């Protein structure tokens, strides 16, 4: 029961309280780059969730059984980025072979994900102390954290795409067109998400 509460705590925290985009500032490049249409935002969001879950699992195993075991934690950055790059490549090849339909949908977004700081970010956050239980993340918690961080990312991305589709039609001052007005929109969304900070009913 205790662990169930902690899993819900991790989920709420990852989706709302410390949303990857709007409060941790991770993954801003795809957030602004792929949020022009809802359909592509959904595709990108799915691809990010997919990679984040796999990357969380693998990096947790490598961190626990290789890096900590042999006391080479200082290699964490290099190892994690290589693992993520290799995983993305493998996932891309596997999808192309076994699920062409899914590959069609996610394909163009997959290469972009290697350099998405959200994926490396979640892998690094998983090596820290879990703020909800006060212990190291367990394997299952890592997977949940990866999934839910991805869901939070997708939520922010899809909301933003919906707003930007409407913004296209509105009259914005010339100097605010494009990126500045998107940043202001994102700021207002972040302001709304700040309200979730009061949700600490598991603490």
């Amino acid at each position, binding site marked *: 029961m205790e662990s169930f509460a902690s899993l819900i705590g991790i989920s709420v925290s990852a989706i709302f309280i410390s949303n990857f985009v*709007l*409060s*941790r*500032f*991770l*993954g*801003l*490049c795809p957030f*602004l780059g792929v949020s022009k249409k809802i359909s592509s935002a959904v595709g990108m969001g799915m691809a990010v969730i997919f990679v984040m879950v796999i990357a969380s699992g693998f990096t947790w195993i490598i961190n626990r059984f290789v890096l900590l075991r042999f006391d080479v934690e*200082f*290699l*964490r*950055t*290099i190892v*994690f*980025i*290589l693992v993520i*790059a290799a995983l993305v490549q493998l996932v891309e090849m596997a999808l192309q072979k076994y699920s062409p339909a899914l590959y069609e949908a996610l394909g163009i977004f997959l290469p972009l994900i*290697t*350099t*998405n*700081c959200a994926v*490396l*970010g979640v892998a*690094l*956050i998983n090596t*820290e102390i879990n703020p909800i239980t006060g212990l190291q993340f367990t394997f299952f918690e890592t997977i949940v954290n990866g999934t839910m961080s991805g869901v939070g990312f997708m939520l922010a991305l899809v909301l933003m795409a919906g707003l930007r589709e409407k913004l296209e039609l509105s009259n914005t001052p*010339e*100097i*605010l067109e494009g*990126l*500045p*007005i998107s*940043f*202001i929109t*994102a*700021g*207002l969304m*972040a*302001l709304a*998400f*700040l309200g979730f900070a009061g949700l600490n009913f598991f603490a």
Partner: protein
Amino acid sequence: MIKDELRRGIIHENPILVLALGLCPSLAVSTSLQNGFGMGMAATFVLACSNVIISSMRRIIPDKVRIPCFIVVIAAFVTMVQLIMKAYLPALDKQLGIFVPLIVVNCIILGRAEAFASKNSISKSLVDGIVIGLGFTFSLCILSIIREILGSNKLLGLKFFPGYEPMTIFILAPGGFFTIAFVMAVVRYLGNRRKGA
């Protein structure tokens, strides 16, 4: 020559404000001038060193695996920065948190490696790395000065305006988005005016 290069890095090809690259670290660490400057310097070091190494290996690296090679070189320098920072600037290291290792995926650095260092000579790449790094540091400093003054009424830990109630929102997440939006708008306004004149 140096003046032209500096102008290119800081004004015409400013990585954050004009090209909109490297946004994640720039919004996350610009809560105080100290953090912003520290992050800028760390990224400049990595950018300059990785540009030199990548440019010196540009004939050896096969075209097909160039991106993984670039990433390994960059990650090696980032690890160095991490270790140096942990040893000599532990307070700054704590403040920047996971954004120090995340310099690896900063698109400015990979972008320069791909667009410049892999095609140009070593000395040119070194200059390019330093200049673009300074542009990054410069815009980080602008963002963090605005946010630190408005958000905590301090600059480098000293009180700024007497009797002004700081707007805490500016050092939180939404303030970061608002600040960069307005700074970008001002940069665009100045650019337009110059073109018109």
